[in-house]
């Protein structure tokens, strides 16, 4: 819980700094753009929270996101109604997740290796398939769902907010979600308590895929073309946000509120630097510093609990 609070404190300090030095940051238009730019990361970070809490990792979501984006574009060009485009994209993401999950839970491939393979295969497969071409000539119903920029933005934010609220509630109150925490806390104890840990693993990866698909749709509809190189580095952003938000990288611990704070903190730094007149090249360095602090905090806490000899 403390890491969650430290991240929140850091974010408030950043906002306070901006309020004094660059009040223009808080102009409605700018805030809206900043928040909108965070939506795709938040959506995948929601899925990533469960993956990490279950004790796994998924580094293929950037590639999944790219494939899903192109697929969404192609489905739209083919004339499918937007509802089906969105659903189809999510189903594609779930398919990716099921492959990852099956590799990890049934074949016992370590998740970092399985998803590394998926990351390369999906990214290179996409390059082969599209030849690097963007999807253009999208129907008018695609960008902003055909609602125009203002309403479209509102829909994106609404979808993200509702999703976050429902998932955050479910994480605490639905049995299946608690099974994810139990599995990540101690997989063997979970198995002995009658939890099907393989099913849990499969489900978190499938959920992760669905989130990657949804994020791809919410991102793609902001533009008039779909790029084929989208989502590079998205997995790192999501993992960083989850870890900064207080989740334990070894599983068992992590909240969605924490993840939200992590996304907000890491996502605010880039725009903040612009407003503060600092070179944007500092963004990655500062984000790296925050992640390092968070991970060090966890290592120190783990060391302390080891020394206090709970398992002595």
């Amino acid at each position, binding site marked *: 819980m403390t890491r969650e609070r430290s991240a929140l404190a850091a974010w408030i300090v950043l906002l306070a700094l901006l309020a004094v030095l660059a009040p223009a940051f808080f102009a409605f238009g700018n805030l809206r753009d900043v928040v909108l730019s965070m939506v795709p990361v938040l959506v995948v970070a929601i899925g990533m929270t469960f993956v990490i809490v279950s004790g796994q990792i998924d580094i293929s979501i950037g590639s999944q996101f790219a494939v899903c984006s192109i697929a969404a574009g192609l489905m739209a060009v083919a004339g499918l109604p937007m509802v089906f485009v969105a659903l189809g994209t999510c189903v594609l993401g779930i398919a990716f997740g099921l492959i990852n999950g099956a590799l990890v839970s049934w074949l016992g491939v370590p998740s970092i290796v399985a998803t590394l393979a998926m990351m390369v295969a999906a990214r290179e497969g996409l390059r082969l398939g599209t030849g690097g071409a963007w999807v253009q000539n999208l129907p008018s119903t695609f960008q902003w769902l055909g609602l125009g920029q203002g309403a479209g933005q509102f829909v994106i934010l609404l979808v993200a907010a509702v999703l976050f609220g429902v998932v955050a509630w479910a994480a605490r109150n*639905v049995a299946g979600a608690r099974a994810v925490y139990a599995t990540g806390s*101690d997989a063997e104890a979970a198995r002995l308590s009658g939890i099907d840990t393989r099913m849990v693993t499969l489900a978190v990866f499938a959920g992760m895929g669905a989130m990657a698909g949804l994020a791809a749709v919410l991102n793609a509809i902001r533009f008039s073309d779909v790029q084929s190189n989208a989502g590079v580095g998205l997995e790192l952003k999501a993992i960083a946000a989850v870890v900064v938000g207080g989740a334990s990288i070894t599983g068992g611990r992590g909240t969605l509120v924490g993840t939200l704070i992590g996304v907000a903190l890491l996502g605010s730094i880039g725009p903040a630097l612009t407003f503060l007149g600092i070179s944007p090249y500092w963004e990655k360095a500062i984000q790296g510093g925050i992640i390092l602090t968070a991970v060090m905090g966890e290592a120190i806490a783990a060391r302390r609990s080891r020394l206090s000899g709970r398992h002595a």
Partner: protein
Amino acid sequence: MLLEARGIRKSYGGVAALRQASLELRVGEVHAIVGENGAGKSTLIKILTGAVIADEGEIRLDGVPVVGHSPLKARSLGIVAIYQQPALFPDLTVAENIALASETGGAWRILDWKKRRLEAREVLDQIGARIDPECAVSRLSMAEQQLVEIARALRAKAKVLILDEPTASLTEQEALRLFEIIRDLRGRGVGLVYISHRLDELFQIADRVTVLRDGTVIGTEEMASIDRAKMIRMMVGRELSSVFPKVDVPIGEIALETEGLTLRCGEIVGMAGMVGSGRTEFAEELFGLRGGRTVQIRGRECHINSPSRAIELGIAYVPEDRRRNGLIMEMAIPANVGLASLKKLFLSPKAERAVAEDYRTRLQVKAGSMTDPVKTLSGGNQQKVSLARWLATNPKVLILDEPTQGIDVGAKAEIHQQMCELAKAGMAILMISSELPEVLGMSDRIAVMHEGKIVRVVPRSEATQEIILALAIGSRAA
């Protein structure tokens, strides 16, 4: 009869863990199981809880045969085991830990946290545990975690509760508290299986006792009609059948002296004790792991605080678990042998091979090729490679932790033979072993550990299985 197990047999890869085991547990009884290390107690419990499936035999609960046993089945039947290491979810709260053991239903079920907390409170109150249901389990002490496990078993409506060394990590006060809870559960008709090395405890708490030896049930007795001496006789009463090649060699000067133990050149000192008595910890301290230990070597006092310091002082340690602590399974014999002795910036494969070839002949390591990874060797030959690595450091003091555990008879004899050769050459050997005949057969003196301390060092001429076991159990009668 509440629980019956009959004709249980179980082998692991040809090695019999249980030959002929049976157990009868009555309603409202505390039934103790005792036996030496490796007598088959753990295997029997695992079979009762469905964690391991027996090769043969039958389990009946309330007279009904249990078919398709599994941990889940055991849970639904109300057979719960509490192991030495708590099997809880450290990151989750007490209430959730308790709830997870008994809740059933689909993944989409919505949880009632208020009910979960109330129910947790209720079962905690039943055993008089003042623990906050909202607290994360990782913040509780061992004793508190054990109480949570008992509460969890109550919540799951356990009919049979199996306690494996429940007092091992408890203080005396906490243990007395546990006994009260056990008596209370017994009063409610729960059948308890109680495993403990501490025989004194059994006289306080158990109604009957079943003695296991070498995978066979020797007998079940009423506690009232048995005394400690008889129990120990039942536990060890075997003939010393195997022949050990131990030869007496002249004992030389003191090689190493530390609190509680003196090792002389040419001497083999056996170290006996129950699992968890601190034998491996003692050896690891001597070798500079675990914070180290102060020793006297050749009249000089040294504090050993790292393995490299220990090696410098001529101490070598062949650890217990070859796979986990010893060999690098993917690497070939020469690299494994040279690891501790050939410490240079640039390794010479030639020197490695030469050393390895030398030991391969001396120790009769049977390997297809020197370049094969060590994992392809048999257990006995792996142990020889592990031994070779440490002999290559040219030690004065050799510590062997369970040197013949899980290896075949032939290789075992060869390792015993080698130990004698080494002693003859003037090496001081400390051999930790859970196998009493081995300790008695190979040692000049036997150091017995109990609860982290060497309680006595018995000379070979005075040592019998009964005496060693009695000391290891911490029995005052010895």
